């Protein structure tokens, strides 16, 4: 049957091409079109509230920071970053930094980028109504002042080595001339979040929700002409369809390939090559320490530290990781990814120990008194909901495996697979029992603070974990200029935190993306693979239909 | 003789959903059945006989008119009062297969009304049903069967047994023979006569078989197109029909000579008219020699004596003189 149909397919294809011989072809080395297949739509293109990796990658093409990380990912001191909107910066004293904006930088509507934009951006990011997830990283900035048109000054509350990084990296600068007349509450739903006006190498051409987001290069971009003419994110219902698109050459790139099976499938397509890079993220099962219904009360189960520790011991990370990722990951024993300077084999950890877990549970009085296989205490079963993004096949697999491991110690984890945007809408509110999360970490230990410190509650610290001693140790670690002392303080903080088990830290997968071989100059930065995509190119000799297609 | 059942100006209309109009199935009919007599009701299919009989027994509700049973106004009562009085009169349906609940046995069907009315109790129900079945010449073991397992004749007898179970005084027999084999008809008629004598019943026999009506009724009413067109003593009416319709009916009886057989329209549907009620309804088909404009414009009323009355503008003179 299939053999008979193949010639038919060929005929169909020929007719297709015959029918679409088109007029204006694009020629030259800047014609490249890349289609990125992706399992979820972007939620919004408003930088302060962008969270999903998918949205931030798109956002970074449209909006610029004051300065960006260089390829070595150094975050410490005043020399590690490369200029973006700011052409240079000078240190006034230990708590004041002054940035000079690039005078070539203009908004996509033609207006110049000014210091007022930066000051406005800071006010939006720190507005509690906006509740930007990254706001915690800005809490040591006390003031941002526009000195003149092109000069802006940052004032810090404390002295610490990463002042430049915090000031320049977290915020994508917003257009004050368009936004500052809009009520903050309106801003979140404003037209500008769907039709952004930025400063970056690309501008939004078309966004059809649920279908695709198409960006077109700004050929006069002040940092150089972007190498690709068009970048299109195509939305697919799930990861498998995305992979199918790339394998069948209908799309050019898929990221987030972590399992041997995916890579095998990508390798089976001759036009693809896999690019492997270290991951800046780690997966974890976060305990919601607040009641899922009423966040003002502590969680009935997980307020108990010993229970959290027992559950941590009951999860066999090694097997789970091997089953899901094969060789493509490493165990993350603490909220530290291999990208961080403090990564090492001697990080504090709670080891897998099922017998000890059972012992602890028994000791807490959790026993299976009704014979249904689930432990209970005072009539309450040891049962909770485990929320995970159903669109991520890896986390889905891992969730099913972990559910089974927990079942073996008499713990009932009910799986709730949610759509990504739905997770992003509910998890930050703290309304969950256990959340199977994945943090793409900034390449500095300071990022731990925003996710696990008290300061992150209401922002990136979804589970509301709070330990003053951990906070104090982290603050001191961030403030110290001595790398050795900093490292030791981080280890003390992590030791304390890991012992509290605010989450079950699982693993840190390597990242692999598959990209069409026609692209040249493909470099990938581990913290954000798309950061340098605007410099990729397709040489004219290797162009395919969609590169040539005029727009 | 006091009438057992008396109808005054009974009218019944049906709504036709498709045509969004009404059809008059019984039009202003008055009739009475004296106790102990047998009345025949004849007319072609669709003339409204069944509707009239069902209205008379409150099996369906008339739109207008008075119905009196043995001094009780049936059209005034309802609920339990009506349920109780229903034991006094019973209806035997034309098609016995439709008249029995297909999902219960004959015995259950016969026993149920007796249990409801307290005529028997669960203990002696079986015995009573057997007795009733014997009365209609059925063997008791048929009681355990379902309706579709019986022959037409057997089921019609069971149907009569069920009607008799509540000890009625009036029995309406709606074409009780039409579903039966010709060979069984005379047996059935004999049964009717026997039961009438044994139980002193009053009969209303609906039929289009004039032969049966001639031999087994005392009076006869001829119905055409929702109205009674002729009424009187059976012998008189059938020997000297006054209305042209009655005459046509008599002619159509499959008599000795099949050549004389003339088929009357039989659509199987109610052919009552929704409009054009002005003239005589038999006008179009009437073969009367004196048919005139009056017939076309004015509806004739039933006129005559207790012995015989007729609704025709041109009544045959010699009949009238005899009356």
């Amino acid at each position, binding site marked *: 049957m299939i053999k008979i149909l193949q010639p038919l397919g060929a005929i169909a294809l020929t007719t297709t091409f015959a029918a679409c*011989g*088109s007029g204006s072809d694009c020629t030259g080395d800047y014609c490249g079109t890349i289609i990125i297949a992706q399992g979820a739509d972007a939620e919004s293109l408003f930088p302060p509230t962008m969270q999903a990796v998918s949205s931030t990658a798109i956002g970074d093409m449209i909006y610029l920071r004051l300065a960006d990380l260089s390829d070595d990912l150094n975050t410490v001191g005043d020399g590690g970053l490369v200029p973006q909107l700011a052409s240079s910066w000078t240190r006034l004293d230990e708590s004041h930094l002054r940035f000079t904006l690039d005078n070539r930088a203009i908004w996509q509507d033609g207006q110049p980028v000014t210091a007022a934009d930066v000051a406005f951006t800071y006010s939006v990011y720190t507005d509690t109504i906006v509740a930007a997830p990254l706001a915690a990283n800005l809490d040591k900035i006390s003031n941002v002042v526009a000195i003149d048109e092109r000069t802006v000054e940052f004032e810090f509350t404390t002295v610490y080595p990463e002042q430049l990084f915090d000031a320049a990296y977290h915020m994508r600068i917003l257009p004050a001339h368009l936004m500052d007349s809009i009520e903050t509450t309106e801003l979140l739903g404003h037209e500008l*979040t769907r039709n952004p006006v930025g400063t970056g190498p690309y501008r939004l051409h078309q966004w059809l929700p649920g279908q695709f987001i198409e960006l077109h290069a700004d050929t006069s971009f002040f940092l150089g002409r972007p190498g690709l003419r068009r970048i299109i994110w195509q939305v*697919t219902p799930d990861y498998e369809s995305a992979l199918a698109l790339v394998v069948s050459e*209908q799309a050019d790139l898929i990221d987030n390939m972590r399992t041997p099976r995916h890579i095998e499938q990508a390798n089976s397509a001759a036009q693809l090559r896999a690019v492997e890079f270290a991951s800046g993220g780690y997966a974890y099962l976060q305990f919601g320490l607040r009641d899922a219904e009423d966040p003002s009360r502590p969680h009935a189960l997980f307020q108990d530290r010993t229970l959290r520790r027992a559950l941590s011991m009951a999860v066999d990370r090694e097997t789970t990781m091997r089953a899901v990722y094969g060789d493509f990951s490493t165990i993350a024993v603490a909220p530290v990814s291999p990208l961080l300077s403090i990564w090492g084999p001697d990080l504090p950890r709670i080891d897998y120990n099922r017998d000890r877990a059972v012992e602890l549970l028994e000791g807490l009085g959790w026993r299976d008194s009704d014979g249904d296989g689930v432990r209970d205490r005072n009539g309450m079963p040891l049962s909770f909901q485990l929320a995970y993004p159903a669109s991520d096949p890896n986390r889905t697999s891992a969730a099913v495996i972990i559910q089974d491991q927990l079942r073996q110690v008499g713990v009932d984890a009910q799986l709730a697979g949610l759509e990504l945007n739905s997770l992003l809408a509910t998890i930050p*509110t*703290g309304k969950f029992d256990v959340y199977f999360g994945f943090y793409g970490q900034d390449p500095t230990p300071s990022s731990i603070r925003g996710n696990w410190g008290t300061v992150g509650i209401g922002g990136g610290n979804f589970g509301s974990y709070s330990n003053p001693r951990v906070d104090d140790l982290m603050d001191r670690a961030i403030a110290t200029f001595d790398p050795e002392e900093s490292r030791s303080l981080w280890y003390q903080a992590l030791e304390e935190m890991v012992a509290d088990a605010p989450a079950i830290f699982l693993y840190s997968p390597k990242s692999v993306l598959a990209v069409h071989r026609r692209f040249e100059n493909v470099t990938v930065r581990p913290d954000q693979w798309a950061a340098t995509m605007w410099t990729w190119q397709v040489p004219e000799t290797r162009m395919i239909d969609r590169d040539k297609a005029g727009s | 003789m006091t009438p057992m059942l008396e109808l005054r100006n009974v009218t019944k209309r049906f709504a036709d959903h498709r045509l969004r109009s009404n059809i008059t199935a019984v039009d202003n009919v008055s009739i009475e059945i004296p106790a102990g007599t047998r009345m025949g009701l004849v007319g072609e299919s669709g003339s409204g006989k069944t509707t009239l009989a069902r209205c008379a027994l409150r099996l369906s509700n008339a739109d207008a008119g008075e119905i009196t049973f043995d001094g009780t106004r049936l059209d005034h009562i309802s609920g339990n009062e009506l349920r109780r009085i229903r034991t006094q009169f019973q209806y035997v349906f034309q098609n016995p297969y439709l008249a029995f609940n297909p999902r219960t046995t004959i015995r259950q069907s016969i026993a149920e009304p007796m249990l409801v009315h307290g005529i028997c109790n669960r203990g002696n129900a079986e015995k009573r049903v057997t007795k009733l079945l014997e009365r209609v010449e059925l063997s008791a073991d048929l009681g355990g069967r379902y309706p579709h397992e019986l022959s037409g004749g057997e089921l019609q007898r069971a149907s009569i047994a069920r009607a008799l179970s509540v000890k009625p005084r009036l029995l309406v027999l709606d074409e009780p023979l039409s579903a039966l084999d010709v060979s069984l008809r005379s047996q059935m008629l004999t049964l009717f006569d026997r039961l009438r004598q044994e139980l002193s019943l009053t009969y209303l026999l609906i039929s289009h078989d004039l032969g049966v009506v001639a031999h087994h009724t005392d009076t006869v009413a001829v119905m055409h197109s929702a109205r009674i067109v002729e009424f009187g003593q059976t012998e008189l009416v059938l020997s000297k029909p006054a209305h042209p319709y009655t005459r046509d009916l008599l002619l159509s009886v499959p008599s000795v000579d099949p050549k004389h057989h003339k088929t009357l329209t039989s659509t199987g549907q109610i052919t009552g008219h929704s409009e054009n009620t002005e003239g005589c309804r038999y006008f179009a088909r009437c073969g009367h020699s004196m048919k005139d404009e009056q017939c076309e414009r004015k509806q004739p009323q039933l006129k005559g004596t207790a012995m015989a009355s007729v609704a025709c503008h041109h009544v045959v003179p010699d009949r009238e003189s005899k009356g």
Partner: protein
Amino acid sequence: MGRLIGRKLFQALVVMLLVTTSTFFLIHIAPGDPFMPDLSVSGVSAERTDQIRRNFGLDRPIYVQYGAYLKNVASGNLGLSFRSYRPVSEIIIERLPNTIVLTSLALIMDFAIGILIGTWQAWKRGSAGDRFLTVATLTLHSTPVFWFGFMLILAFSVSLRILPGSGVVTIGIYDSLTPLGQLWDRIKHLILPVSTLALIGAGSTARFQRAAMLDTLSQDFIKSARARGLSECTVIFRHALRNSLLPTITLLGLSLPVLLSGSVLVETVFSWPGIGALTVDSVQSRDYMVVTAIGLVSAVMVLAGNLVADILYSVADPRARRKP
């Protein structure tokens, strides 16, 4: 006919009111205040929560909200999406054409194939072909629509690679195609999802049509037509088909909700950006302003379909036309 339409419209209005009311209250009585994804975590952004509550009018008593909602709906204002803060009507209008194209093409194909097969089966009743088609249509009728979609994708997109398995157009080159090329591109993308919906639907339509046709063929006027010596073809297509179509037209009205249900699944399988996929999205992200609006829109579509079926019926059936 005017009165018929008037009455049907009135009935439809009543049904719409019921639908609106029931979805509104259904969502309001649900646990956890679904109209308000509570954003307060330890009181941190209570301002924002309150602000949003006020923006959406959620601080008012429920009957006031209901009244306001009805008023808004009546004036065509379906509110703002919780998720994107965009007007719901805008979101729906953006998606609606896709669903209408998909479902109406599917409906046409469904009935065309179904009536054809059903008629042929009735004509050749008892033949091997009829028996085979009976099993085949029954099997189609019993197949999960989304699974069937997967099978088609596996066959035509993954194995044979001759038809696209997702999306509306070929992204990246569509804009540069000639108008004819664009049309062909759209058609290519429509083939699989439309076929999925239509073939599953045709399964039941054919069964229905076969029964209706057999019923018609057993009627007297067909017997008399045959007796007059008309050819079988004339009997089937001139006399029987028209009459047998009457009950099938009623099926048309009934099959719309089924089709819309199917489109929810099919749009998800084929990432077809229509109302169905939007339903799943909105339900997953608990965007209930959009959800209630979709309920309303699908009810309108179904009721409109029923109205069309009623009118078609009265046009096709001379008896229903005879008296006003």
